[in-house]
């Protein structure tokens, strides 16, 4: 049978004037001073302590062949995490929300405008900045951080133990990792922000998005409390 060829219609991003800029790249360059200890960017940039950041938009996470990414970062890449305005914004805001055991020793940038400026600066070093929207509808000013009230919930470890029985169908209860990562003995806040990142579908794994998606804030806290010290 002969295939029917249908036309592909490429939707172009709105041009200048069609959207507000992400942020101010000049201000972003100043913020990048916090990054240059580890990350190179611009002409001739190479991987160093951290990977170079040229062409990061649209790239799958952990994609530089020779850079020794952390296991956590490699897994995020395998799960399908790609660097976009939204995921970069969330990662810069709180690296561990997106990649639990990232080696990037950076505590995060809480100021949404500062992040927007930084992203505008990074965008300059893409192969083709024109292909990156100057502003994604949700990128600027979105607060991905978990509400302090949610982090403050005292989880009920007994409830957590019951809920955990769903987790240990896949994750080994004793914390060994064999194709599926360990979820035991995590700091509670790391556990909670990771689950909320799945719930918001910032983290890509479909099973985890589904599992986290139907857990309430109390249930996530209960699981974090139980898995903190399951023995």
């Amino acid at each position, binding site marked *: 049978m002969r295939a029917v060829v249908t036309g592909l219609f490429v939707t172009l991003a709105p041009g200048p004037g069609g959207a507000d800029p992400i942020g101010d790249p000049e201000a972003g360059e100043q913020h990048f001073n916090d990054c240059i200890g580890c990350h190179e960017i611009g002409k001739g940039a190479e991987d160093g302590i951290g990977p170079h950041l040229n062409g990061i938009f649209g790239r799958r996470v952990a994609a530089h062949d020779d850079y020794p990414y952390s296991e956590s970062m490699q897994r995020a890449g395998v799960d399908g995490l790609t660097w976009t305005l939204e995921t970069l914004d969330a990662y810069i805001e709180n690296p561990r929300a997106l990649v639990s055991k990232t080696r990037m020793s950076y505590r995060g940038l809480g100021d949404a405008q500062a992040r927007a400026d930084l992203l505008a600066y990074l965008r300059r070093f893409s192969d083709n900045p024109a292909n990156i929207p100057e502003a994604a509808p949700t990128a600027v000013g979105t607060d991905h951080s978990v509400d302090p009230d949610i982090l403050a919930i005292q989880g009920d470890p007994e409830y957590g133990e019951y809920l955990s029985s769903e987790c240990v169908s896949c994750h080994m209860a004793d914390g060994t990792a064999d*194709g599926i990562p360990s979820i035991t003995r995590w700091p509670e806040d790391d556990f909670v922000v990771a689950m909320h990142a799945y719930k918001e579908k910032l983290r890509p794994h479909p*099973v985890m998005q589904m599992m986290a998606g139907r857990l309430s804030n109390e249930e996530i806290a209960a699981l974090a409390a139980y898995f903190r010290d399951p023995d």
Partner: protein
Amino acid sequence: MTLNRRTFIAVGTAAAASLSSPAVLAQGSGRPRVVVIGGGSGGATAARYIAKDSDGAIDVTLVEPSRSYFTCYFSNLYIGGFTDLDDISHTYGTLAAKYGINVVHDWAVGVDRDAKTVSLAGGDALSYDKLILAPGIDFVEDAVPGWSVAAQNRMPHAYKAGSQSELLKAQIMAMPEGGRFAMVAPPDPYRCPPGPYERVSMVAHVLKETNPTAKILIVDPKEKFSKQALFEEGWQRHYSGMIERIGPDFGGENTSVDPDAMIIDIDGMVEKVDVCNVIPAQKAGRIADMAGVTMGNWAPVNAADMSSTVDADVYVLGDSADQGDMPKSGFAANSQAKVCAMAIRGELTGSRVFPAKFTNTCWSLIAADDGVKVGATYEATEERIAKVDGFISETGEDAATRKATYEESVGWYSGITTDMFS
């Protein structure tokens, strides 16, 4: 009368014997008793969770005839050469040694729900306060005319793993060059919805390596099947021209076999084949029928705790249960077992009871490093276990994603078998 030592012992024995009916084994001492029939994903999990979480407050007996249990999941991977049979074999020693579960290797042959006893083929009887039935599947008689258990050596089902898996694999390896493998697929509902099609993938994988001109014929009574788009895409990519499927529109629902002649009759069209894998229509494991908790082929249950709709002290898990939206899978049985174990502990010891939550994920391997998955979450409603949310792998996924999915399935296998047996 003076009591000497000898008469005292005699009196004592008589008194002890009169406390229980002679045929009933002495169990526990005043502890509530749970008997679990079937040591698979539902039964082993339920027994382990009740014993583990009740800290010895409940006397748990597990009745399972097999000393070595072969999981049905990953048995297709054995056929495909991705795992050894030893790696999917499990024993019950840890359940006995670590959790104090009384593991009885015998067949349950009767349930007296009035007396609350289970009789065993070996002649003993077990009394229970709560009974869990997790017997898996049996085959519907005459579902495929010409096939019976007596013919399963000529035409294996390999749908209860172990010796049947080994037999089917040996037959595939002995096929003549350019020979033909046929599968008679089952009608819905049946154990492991993607299972027959994963098996076809694994057979194709083996034949592509050892016998590349061989062909595969699927005779199917169903219009559609689980993960169909994913399997068909994979077959096209890896095994182009090798696999043919005859559905109900061409007589796939009107199939009979002649095991002696190795012939399949598909609505009058006669096909001679070299290997024939017959997976008949299925029903609840027979003990569920004998216990009188089935309606039709399956045993209806209440979604909140997996109790039978006809007897509040009998619970049915896994493949045998008619529960609603969950597929019949090992993952589902394992999930149901935890809800059931929590509910039974609550009733017998007053421990806390939380709302039922259920999950399922089914991974399938199409070729080396080409894994796909489908999954959903569920909740208990008044009428049934109802689906909440789900996902499925997409066609056209890249190789890294498919490889990760396969590796995840290997991790899951370790996880669930640890959750059942360790």
